[in-house]
């Protein structure tokens, strides 16, 4: 249809000629991957460790060597007593301390319970918990080995972290980041571009023309669908090249789910534009109404499981939540629709409701 083609061409001109916005739109995902990848890390590496060894012996040396052997810990101090720990922690010189009892080696040798104390800087609770867990695991493994050697215990549990064995935070944030970028592109840009037409008075002319409302909406949102799709691909490629984030499942399925999520975001953008009359209000509404919930309630940064019940309930209607779950499933676990059909159905249902509501809101506008 010629009219629709003309609308699409015009919309592309808008997008391509607004160089600054285009640059932001294209660079934002790329920069964000880098920012989130390097700046926000919840995985633990290079923990600065102090060892407090009042009486060095075989056992303490063996255990200290274990800490040194992993790249998770770096022993920065070996101290004879606990007195200097406090200032070291306060200055951030150390993040964790392993304190051996004076008779540690002796009791170990005699098969008696030996005591060891783990002190962790928990100013950042998540990192603190992770450090604590790593250190205890290391100590426990050593202890079990010793006991096995002595013939006391024969069961040696081997633990494995599945899907993200090294607990790379980049693996976790990339799916969420895609949702975030799409929200900005699809919801925010759509809301702004639609409300701009209202502000400029051109929407009036389009409405008076023989174009059907659906054509007008389709013409307006199509470029952002394409841009959104492009940025998903961009984020995936970058995440793979820079952070080696895996894509274990079907790329086609992931992109299809991405399109579904883009549609939901576009519909939200249309809804916002229909209810606001200026670009500025539309922008504020888009940020408050879509970006915040998508960051806070999607499990992107804060785990949904640790939210209070009311927020957990609300998260069910946040489209990003389902998209993030689906994307994580496909990328990290390599599963398909046979596992993710419920999440996909939820996302599809939300998308349909939003699309219906946005078309309706556009009709109401005509009244």
């Amino acid at each position, binding site marked *: 249809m*010629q*009219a629709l*083609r*003309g*609308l699409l*061409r*015009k919309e592309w*001109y*808008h997008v391509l*000629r*607004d160089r600054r916005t285009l640059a932001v739109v294209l660079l934002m995902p790329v920069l964000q991957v880098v920012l989130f990848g390097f700046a926000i890390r919840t995985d633990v590496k290079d923990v600065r460790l102090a060892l407090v060894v009042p009486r060095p012996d075989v056992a303490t040396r063996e255990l200290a060597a274990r800490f040194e052997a992993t790249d998770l810990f770096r022993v920065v101090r070996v101290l004879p007593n606990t007195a200097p720990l406090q200032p070291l922690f306060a200055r951030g010189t150390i993040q964790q301390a392993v304190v051996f009892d004076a008779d540690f080696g002796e009791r170990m040798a005699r098969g008696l319970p030996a005591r060891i104390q783990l002190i962790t800087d928990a100013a950042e609770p998540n990192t603190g918990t992770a450090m604590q867990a790593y250190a205890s695991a290391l100590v426990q493994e050593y202890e079990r080995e010793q006991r096995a050697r002595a013939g006391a215990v024969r069961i040696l549990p081997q633990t494995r972290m599945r899907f993200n064995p090294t607990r790379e935070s980049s693996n976790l944030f990339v799916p969420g980041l895609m949702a975030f970028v799409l929200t900005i592109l699809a919801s925010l840009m759509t809301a702004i571009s639609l409300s701009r037409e209202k502000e*400029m*008075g*051109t929407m*009036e*002319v*389009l*409405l*008076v*023309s*023989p*174009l059907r409302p659906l054509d007008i909406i389709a013409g307006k949102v199509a470029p952002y669908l394409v841009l959104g799709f492009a940025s998903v691909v961009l984020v995936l490629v970058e995440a793979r090249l820079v952070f080696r984030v895996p894509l274990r499942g079907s790329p086609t399925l992931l992109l299809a789910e991405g399109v579904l999520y883009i549609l939901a975001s576009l519909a939200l953008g249309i809804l916002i534009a229909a209810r606001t009359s200026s670009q500025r209000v539309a922008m504020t509404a888009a940020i408050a109404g879509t970006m915040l919930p998508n960051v806070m309630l999607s499990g992107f940064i804060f785990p949904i499981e640790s939210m209070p019940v009311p927020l957990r309930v609300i998260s069910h209607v946040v489209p990003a939540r389902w998209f993030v779950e689906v994307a994580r499933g496909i990328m990290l676990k390599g599963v398909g629709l046979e596992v993710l059909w419920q999440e996909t159905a939820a996302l599809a249902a939300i998308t349909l409701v939003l699309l219906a509501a946005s078309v309706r809101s556009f009709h109401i506008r*005509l*009244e």
Partner: protein
Amino acid sequence: MTAPGRGETVIHARGLTRRFGEFVAVDAISFEVHAGEVFGFLGANGAGKTTAIRMLTGLLAPSAGEARVAGHDVYRESDAIKRSIGYMSQRFSLYEDLTVRENVRLYGGIYDLSDADIRARTAAMLERLGMTQVADRRVGSIPLGWKQKLAFSVALLHRPRIAFLDEPTGGVDPITRRQFWELIYEAAAGGTTVFVTTHYMDEAEYCDRVSIMVAGRIAAIGPPAEVKARLGAASMDDAFYRLARPPAGARATETE
């Protein structure tokens, strides 16, 4: 549809009413506009002009009454109405980041003109407006008066039977306004009916007939000379003031 003869009724409103809740924005207005006429639709802000235009252009369903525009019913045939009218709002309705030619092409496409038609009409239009040399400049960079003339010509590109102009001359200088009115006359001479709203009473004098809306009703209608004579007013300005003036003792309150 055959070419309209002069004098044929192209807009016909009978008891046309629009309510928003309790508020009656347009209160049973009745009038006719004839082919080739320049019809001035006057009224203070909030008098109901915009609501009336929105009903006539198929943007808003009436609450009661009937209206036919270019022979089509406003309730059932809004698509046919949209094809037979051109519309220009006070905000020009052109895209500033598109070139002159791109704007024309866009609207030509929206009204389903063929590419060949669009090319031919664009060339003729730019020639007539003397804008051939700015054809590939962005609309944002051409003078306001030019934008206005361009917007008007674009609204007539698909050769509609009726052109609705909503305060087309807001904020331009008198010379440009005069030139703009020459375009309006030219269109009317070509058989296009021009339905125009304005706040400039000197412009009202240029119209074949005017109607003045006050509080949702048509308070006066007829050729400017007749309206003035009936009210004993020296000018349209005076006539407008007499009608729009609130009753003695009441304070003027305007709502948009």
